[in-house]
């Protein structure tokens, strides 16, 4: 009874981010890690660590002091030598979610940041349901992430995202990722949700993550206004982040040129990620969260 009440309360508080129905769907999902990491606590994920799961891993010679329970007596009978059976350990998975909270994300209808928060909340909720260690942070608070574990932490998780807002000024992506890497020494899945519209570039930041040998998912969020701008006339374009100004006279050819530039930008990001085994997922900010999670991300191998 008490659990039911808490689930409803959770749904009501996360109306803007995740509906109850959506959360119910998410509970059945699981984040896919393409790598096997060493966890910190006992969990449901296979770990690199040898331990006491049911899954056999290897044999090794017995040395004095080993637990006699793991000696393979059948082998001893055949070879007359003592061998120890080693089993794989099952540990928890570290899921890091890093969301771009620069002002460029506060753009579009709905804003890219809202979509990013929804995705982050949904993925975090999946992780919590699977007993993973979920660490969420934004670019501006990369050094002080919120770390939650277990379904009970879902309140905190969703509450965290509810209160998150775009920061001005926000640190650059490179700076944020550098801080993130210094703070989080463990390995796991990194879900980076950003629009990549960073004038200093995204390459260095991604390379830093790659160097940590993490399983990186890059969710590239772009708004429809960016994908298909509905601008006309002679305009003075103001950058939301640094107030940079560009004077343009919108014409069909300029729009076409912009589209080509955008396509080239997306393509370069995608190929950069592919070359470095970063899973690149492109998301429109006006995409509905339900089909996004259940179909879009599933088909792209982020969840199952």
């Amino acid at each position: 009874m008490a659990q039911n009440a808490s689930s409803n309360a959770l749904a009501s508080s996360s109306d803007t981010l995740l509906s109850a129905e959506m959360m119910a769907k998410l509970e059945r999902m699981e984040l896919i890690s393409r790598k096997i990491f060493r966890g910190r606590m006992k969990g449901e994920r296979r770990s690199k660590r040898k331990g006491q799961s049911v899954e056999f891993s290897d044999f090794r010679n017995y040395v004095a002091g080993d637990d006699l329970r793991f000696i393979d007596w059948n082998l001893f009978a055949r070879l007359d030598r003592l061998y120890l059976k080693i089993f794989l350990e099952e540990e928890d998975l570290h899921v890091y979610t890093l969301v771009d909270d620069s002002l460029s994300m506060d753009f579009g209808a709905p804003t890219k940041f809202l979509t990013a928060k929804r995705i982050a909340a949904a993925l975090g909720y999946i992780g919590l349901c699977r007993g993973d260690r979920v660490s969420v942070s934004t670019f501006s608070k990369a050094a002080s992430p919120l770390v939650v574990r277990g379904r009970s932490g879902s309140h905190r998780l969703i509450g965290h995202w509810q209160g998150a807002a775009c920061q001005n000024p926000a640190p650059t992506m490179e700076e944020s990722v550098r801080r993130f890497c210094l703070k989080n020494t463990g390995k796991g899945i990194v879900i980076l949700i950003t629009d990549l519209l960073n004038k200093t570039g995204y390459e260095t930041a991604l390379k830093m993550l790659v160097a940590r040998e993490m399983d990186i998912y890059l969710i590239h969020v772009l708004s429809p206004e960016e994908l298909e701008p509905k601008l006309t006339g002679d305009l003075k374009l103001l950058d939301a982040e640094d107030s940079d100004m560009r004077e343009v006279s919108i014409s069909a050819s300029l729009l076409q040129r912009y589209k080509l530039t955008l396509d080239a930008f997306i393509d370069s990001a995608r190929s950069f990620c592919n070359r470095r085994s970063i899973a690149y997922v492109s998301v429109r900010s006006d995409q509905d969260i339900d089909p996004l999670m259940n179909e879009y991300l599933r088909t792209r191998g982020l969840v199952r």
Partner: protein
Amino acid sequence: MTWINMLSAWQWLLLLAIPPAILSLYFLKLKRQESVVSSTMLWKRAIEDLHVNSIWQKLRKNLLLYLQLLFVGLLIMACIRPGWSGMNRAGERRIYIIDHSASMQASDSKPSRLALARDKALKLMKDAASNDSAMVIATSDRASVEQGFTNNRSLLEKAVQRIEPTSQLTDVSEAFRVAAGLANPGRMSFEDNVDIQVAEAVPATVYFFSDGAVGELNEAEFGQLKIEYVPIGDVDTQNAGILSFAVQRPDTDSAKAKQGSIAAFARMIHHGSETIQCTASLYLNNSLVDAQRVELAPGQETGIQFDLEGVDNGSLKLELDHADALPLDNVAYAAIRPDRQVSILLITAGNTAIETALRTERITQLANVQVEPRSYMSSPEYLTSTTQGKYDLIIYDSCSPEKMPTASTLFIGGLPPKDIQPRSNEPSSESSNGDAQAAVQSSDEQTWSFGEPTGPIMIMDVNRSHPISQYLEMLSVGIVEGRIVKPPQTGTILMVSDIGPVFAVAPRGPYQDAVLGFDIIRQTGDGFEMNSDWGIKRSFPVFIFSAVEQLAGGITEAGAPTVQPGMPIPLMLSNRFQNYQIIDPKGRTQTIERGADGRFLYTKTDEIGVYEVRAAGLEDPVERFCVNLFSNRESNLSVGMELSTGAESILATPNTIRARQEVWRWLLLLALGLLMLEWIVFNRRIFI
């Protein structure tokens, strides 16, 4: 494509200032709307290559600006009046030759052929490009440059309008020579008394406006000229005209018996396709005296004759009452010369040869001859008559007066008195130079000089160009004795013998003196003996007649001379008067002064009709002459569609005068359309 500048310099400056003004307006006009985007990164990349020149980037892809610039461009284009025609005339040189001969007065083209030619020329001028230079030549039997090469169109138009009809014949070769000459390089044109080389050495196009009655042209004269022949008039214009009209005193005895018997002959032609009948009326001093019905067959000449009696003096007019396009050749004039008798005084001791020669029929018709002995020269009557100018000619046979008479003289054998020397060329007037020898030599050339008698002599040569000696045959003439006769510089040697000149003529004021250096009959102590056998030769009476005709100014023909319009007529004026008045058919008077030899070349024969030469104090005119068209070519009004130039011919180019195809109106319309389009585009931009 050719252009005509319609604007002045300041207007051009104003017009050309508009496009920069539009451009600057576009810089000022762009008040951009602010729009916040997530990042300008992608936009910056998209417009990166357009930022090479930020000024031009602003102008790029701006349809409105282009439309406006195009609009102004079209306006400017319209202002220079682009156009084209079948002819290439960019900066070309044109020569307008307009025929204003008699046949161009024909009224088959209303109001006249000349007016039509002027209109066509003016139209062609209007269509010329502004940098074309042109000249205007009016041609009849002579060419006159009405306007030299200029690109001032108003001068050219005035020159064309100045061209008036004439009654003259057609001879275009001079016009083409003038045109070819002026089309050559290095020629100058005169405009406001300033020498300007208006035109470069480029081939010129000649627009020849004529009815084609020009005869054959010499193609070699064209040079670099390109001939465009514009025929004026109708091809099948019919016209009847008089080709000749003359009067003659009949030679027959019966006619001679009648006093003042005159026969008038006329020849007429009809250029047409049908035989016509008309009446030829003859007027004497503007009174109808006779008329004849004439039938004129097409293309054939018809002659008629009128016989008049009791007519001694007056002017005749023959008129055809046929209404055709050219009335000018339906009238012909002839004048009956006054029966003028000259007075001749012969002073001789007795010379049968001369006396006989002066009694010939021709001389008695024109002269009264008075024969006197030498003693007559000392009589008071002689002195009176010679000082009063009673005689036209005094012949001194083997004698000499003390003083030269106021008459022309012929000395046969005698030595003229000293005052025969020209008065205005006295040696004393020359000696003031200080060079005595030169003065003597000069005085020799200025005065008569006579040698001593020597003989025998033989005539070597006779001056065939002088009317006195032109018919003389002297080779068989024997001369016992003669002397050298050297005339002053103004004189003419008529005979040269083996010892030198023996016969000469020279003017003395209004008179002429002829001196023959040998006698016909000379007086010796034994009486008279023949000095020369010339008196019995056939050429002697011819000589006497020529001398009487030329020195006394006698007239033998009944009909006055007639010339075609514009042609000069030589007049032989009697020495009785110093000044004469010539009255033309319109009553205008021109006073002329008799020259030393009594000859005068009258050139103002532009009007058709009878001209009278009058002297002060005389009721009747001393001479008449007529100007008549008398030209088969001018009377033939059928317009030739080609000009013959020997081997080839120039075809008529009736389509030469094509309307200039102007496009400026279309450009303006297009500009208007563009203005509307621009308005629509502007509005669309507002609505978005």
